[in-house]
């Protein structure tokens, strides 16, 4: 798991997430095989340092929780917005602060919930979205790129850091170019 070690190191890098007053907006592109390990790793590394909102668009929280059980999660800092469990009929989590939405189609409600949850935390805050691909598939590339630009501007205005995950080689080149130029940093592993 050398690649995951690299990401873990990156997430601990002070110059990326600590000394940047405005928060950084980072896109992580990884393989389909590795992506399931990434959300738990991010929660374990960043959840202890920030008021942390996790927007789940690909996997339900039950599935993610199974992967991060071995990590030290400070759940007091964690708020989960799960857009998958209801849609897929998965069990809803009880022991973590969470909101269950019924799908990915209502972006306005989704991001209103995200910002409401972020506002609920004091101190430094962070948003993680587990799959940019799912948002684009569900809402169309043009709609999503436009909304993404607005959301990133809102995050930057509020100095909230953000990390989004995307599966490598899964986006059409022009869609990818439209989207990734908006990020502060793109990392691959």
């Amino acid at each position, binding site marked *: 798991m050398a690649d995951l070690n690299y990401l873990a190191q990156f997430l601990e890098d002070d110059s990326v997430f600590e000394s940047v007053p405005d928060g950084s907006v980072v896109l992580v592109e990884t393989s389909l095989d590795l992506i399931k390990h990434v959300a738990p790793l991010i929660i374990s590394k960043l959840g202890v340092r920030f008021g942390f909102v996790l927007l789940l668009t690909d996997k339900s929280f039950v599935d993610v929780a199974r992967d991060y059980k071995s990590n030290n999660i400070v759940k007091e800092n964690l708020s989960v917005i799960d857009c998958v469990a209801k849609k897929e009929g998965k069990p809803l989590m009880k022991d973590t602060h969470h909101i269950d939405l019924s799908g990915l189609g209502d972006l306005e409600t989704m991001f209103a919930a995200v910002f409401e949850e972020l506002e609920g935390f004091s101190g430094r805050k962070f948003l993680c979205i587990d799959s940019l691909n799912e948002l684009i598939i569900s809402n169309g590339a043009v709609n999503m790129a436009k909304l993404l*630009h607005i959301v990133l*501007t*809102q995050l*930057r205005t509020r100095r909230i850091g953000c990390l989004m995950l995307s599966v490598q080689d899964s986006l059409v080149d022009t869609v990818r*170019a*439209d989207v990734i*130029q908006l990020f502060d940093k793109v990392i691959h592993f």
Partner: protein
Amino acid sequence: MCVMDQKTIEQELLRVVHSHEHGAIIMAELPEENYLDATSASVKTLLDDGFEGVYISFQRPFDNLKSIFLRKDIDINKLLVIDVASALAKQSKVLHDRCIHIDNKLDINELVRAIYISLPKLISIKKFVFIDSISTISLHKPLSETLRFSEFLIRTIKKTPLSGSTFLIFNVASGLSQKKFIRDIALRVEETIRE
């Protein structure tokens, strides 16, 4: 698509601005993977060469840009920033003497007027207008409006009676350079910086 590395883009930018005594319209195709670094490096290169500029920030709100430029040792006092991103996202407007806000409706005529009014406020005889991403405005405006913006701006810069040289720089992610509306704008520029 393979794009020249950042050092080469900066060198190429300097070559172009030094070869046009009275200014020129330029399109810079930048690698989308490190777009922020590329645009910042271009601005720094121009400021270090004695330029002052009007920076049209479609991508980022002013405060975020200011913070990034501070870290990259870019002198914000040599820039006037038109904060379009905050207008597009309907965000609160930060008061700063280097920041110019526009109305949330984002009227193209108002935007070009803001650029036109800002240029004479720059002291240096070497000036630039820097569009951070022409494709980002197209996310929010119809392509016809995006093209009208670029056309209107090109005409305004060419007809503005300023002493010295004024360069208009359209930046675009290299992966989008073959989109039709980008190609249409590229037809109107005098120099394209790319591989």
